């Protein structure tokens, strides 16, 4: 086997591995260095993978790597296994992780919209949340918290690793607009004295009110 043949074989192998779709022979010939006869290469590669966990298969004139049929049966192929969480689910999960233990009513209050049963079901199914007991208030509502799998999945060692609001702001994950010291030097004493209220002026001139995170001392920097 010549060195050139070896090299082209490696190229073909990588090409088939990285391709999103089965590759037509015409394209394979295009992609390999000019004038190479691809048939011996394809035969060789097919032979190499013949008894492996992955086989090189031909469908029409297209070629692709596929899991060996006997192995595939072992591995339980399921289509569309990965489901992306809805925005509502991610938000609910975030609120539960930051505010646990928390009742459904409290989640709704924080989100400002009702939490559909399906949202919690999805999170339960993902094994990211679990019931954590009951609140000792009338009705004894169930409280929710996160699980070990949650920590595992998100690569957190503990809940404590979740960055605080100041970190989120500093990281750019919260839309913190440039803050300007307000002109509230008179007139509204009540406002000035309220440590929970901070005025921010955006570039466009619209004004948002944002409660001040008590942990944060660098809001205005």
């Amino acid at each position: 086997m010549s060195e050139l043949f070896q090299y082209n074989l490696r190229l073909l192998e990588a090409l088939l591995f990285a391709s999103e779709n089965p590759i037509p022979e015409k394209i394979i010939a295009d992609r390999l260095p000019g004038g190479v006869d691809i048939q011996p290469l394809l035969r060789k590669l097919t032979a190499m993978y013949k008894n492996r966990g992955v086989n090189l298969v031909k469908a029409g004139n297209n070629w692709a790597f596929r899991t060996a049929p006997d192995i595939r049966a072992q591995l339980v192929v399921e289509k569309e296994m990965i489901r992306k969480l809805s925005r509502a689910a991610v938000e609910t999960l975030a609120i539960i992780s930051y505010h646990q233990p928390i009742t459904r009513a409290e989640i709704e209050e924080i989100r400002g919209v009702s939490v559909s049963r399906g949202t919690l079901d999805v999170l339960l199914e993902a094994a990211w949340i679990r019931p954590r007991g009951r609140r000792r208030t009338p009705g004894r509502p169930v409280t929710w918290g996160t699980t070990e799998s949650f920590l595992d999945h998100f690569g957190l060692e503990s809940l404590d690793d979740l960055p605080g609001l100041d970190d989120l702001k500093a990281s750019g994950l919260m839309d913190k607009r440039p803050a300007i010291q307000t002109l509230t030097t008179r007139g509204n004493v009540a406002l000035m004295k309220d440590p929970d209220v901070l005025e921010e002026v955006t570039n466009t001139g619209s004004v948002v009110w944002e409660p001040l995170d008590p942990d944060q001392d660098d809001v205005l920097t």
Partner: protein
Amino acid sequence: MAEDMETNFSKFEDDKEFAPSSDQRLVLDVDGFAGPIDVLLTLAREQKVDLTQISILELADQYLAWVAKLRQANLELAADYLVMAAWLAYLKSLLLLPTSTDDEEPTGEEMAAALQFQLLRLESMQQAGEKLLSRDQLGRDFFRRGNPEKFGYNLNSAFEASIYDLLKAYGEHTHRSNVKILRVELSDLYSTDDGLKWLTKMLGSMPDWTSLLQFLPAEIKGDLVSRSMVASALSAALQLTKQGELKIRQTETFGAVYVRAAQNASEFGGNKSIHPVEIKLK
């Protein structure tokens, strides 16, 4: 403004037909720096000597010259840059003066060594970043399986969400829920209209040059209300001057502003040079 300076500098360079010296090139680049340490590092590199051998004193001079040039050109400099300039000036004085025996404060040499360490450390990280990015990268130099087959077996979880999604969701939600409806409170600052009222009401009784402050309805206290009072009176005075009903003068920069009714214009100091009106509000 910055663009004007750029063209001015390039013109200057073209006329003289020599390569721009390092500090001039830096002037053109002021937006390209990530803070004063970055500037210092660039200046140090221009010296083309080993950073461990660099003269901090010389570097301080170059930085101060750079800042001076920018300020001369009226370029806005972030406070960080000015703080560094002040610190370097202080460091220079420490390096030039005899060593103090006070053990509490770090000596000039120690401070210089610390700065040098900081430069070396930042440089090491800039180089590390370059080395990192020059490595083979996934999706550019080597590739993953293009057509992955998914079976229950090679999945971590049936649901997809990253820590980024999670933190972003929380950050955005928190931000969103913190945005309240703005109620604009009625301002009790004074307006130009107010100023017009005071001036027109009292002007007839003040034919001589009178300090503008005399027209104010209340004493100046230095707070925002007082400042709006002065501003209102001044803009009203300017407006009346423009309409020919008033004369206005100021004899020195930041000095008191005097006004009087226009019909008495010939009486008083007509040939004195009048400074542009400028008021510094304290």
